[in-house]
């Protein structure tokens, strides 16, 4: 790995953390999903996977350790891998908007399963039911954000990448 990659991964993870904090006042409306998808498409899944590990570890420093953070170590890499697979077949923003929406709608159930391992099935069930409205907001806002921002961000980052590496992307 080159020094430029190390710096880039740091910048990517920092921008994701900053993006999350900037929108943290709106419950379950986030830009993290969009950024992970665009970064994977633009910079490749390997760099983005490393950025996701740094992002999740930074979350622990910010919020302290919690069981939901363990889920972050799985769910963001999962999104990145699915994006990488999609990227080989689809170039349209619609495909990624559907991915982001599905990801948001399923977010609660994924964490409910994780929480069930720690606190029991009843707790996991309650966790999911209680968060259904948040999942609804999450999935729908992901869909809208990705639909409108995926292409402009991808184009911008593509140009920046070209300058940064001084080669064709």
């Amino acid at each position, binding site marked *: 790995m080159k020094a430029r990659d190390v710096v880039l991964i740091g910048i990517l993870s920092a921008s994701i953390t900053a993006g999350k904090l900037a929108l943290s006042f709106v419950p379950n409306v986030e830009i993290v999903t969009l950024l992970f998808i665009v970064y994977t498409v633009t910079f490749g899944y390997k760099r983005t996977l490393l950025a996701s590990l740094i992002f999740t570890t930074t979350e622990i420093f910010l919020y302290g350790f919690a069981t939901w953070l363990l889920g972050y170590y799985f769910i963001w890499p999962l999104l990145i891998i699915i994006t990488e697979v999609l990227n080989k077949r689809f170039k349209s923003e619609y495909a990624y908007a559907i991915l982001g929406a599905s990801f948001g709608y399923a977010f609660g159930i994924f964490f409910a399963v994780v929480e069930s391992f720690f606190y029991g099935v009843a707790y996991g069930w309650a966790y999911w039911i*209680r968060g259904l409205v948040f999942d*609804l907001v999450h*999935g729908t806002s992901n869909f809208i954000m990705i*639909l409108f921002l995926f292409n402009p961000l991808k184009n911008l980052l593509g140009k920046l990448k070209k300058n940064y590496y001084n080669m064709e992307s």
Partner: protein
Amino acid sequence: MNKKIILVLIVLGISLLAFVGYKNFIVPKAVEGEKEVTIHIINDKENMDKTFTYNTDGEYLIDLLEEKKDELGITFQDFDFGKMIVAMLGYTVDESNNEYFHIYVNGEDATTGVGEIPLMDKDTYTFELKTY
């Protein structure tokens, strides 16, 4: 109209319908008016097993617990998912030993927190100190 705008409006419409469905079919309904309910607290560690019967106009369990907070020696802790009971009858759960108060409604595991459990006439709400 732009294709994307139409798509967004469709998704927003479906989301709104899903929200209405959630409110009407999934969230347990509360019943207004006076009800007689029983609060049963079990703490084997402290050899405590107490039962309290109340008449209440509250709609959700949290309303009654807030009202009888001092009598039941309850302490709540706020989380982003709602309020959690961390002490009952003056006994505070030992988090280092993974203790918590498990909630049963008429002997069945509660599937929601105290903020979403509707108070129903003649129901028994049991709180048992357990470890996870």
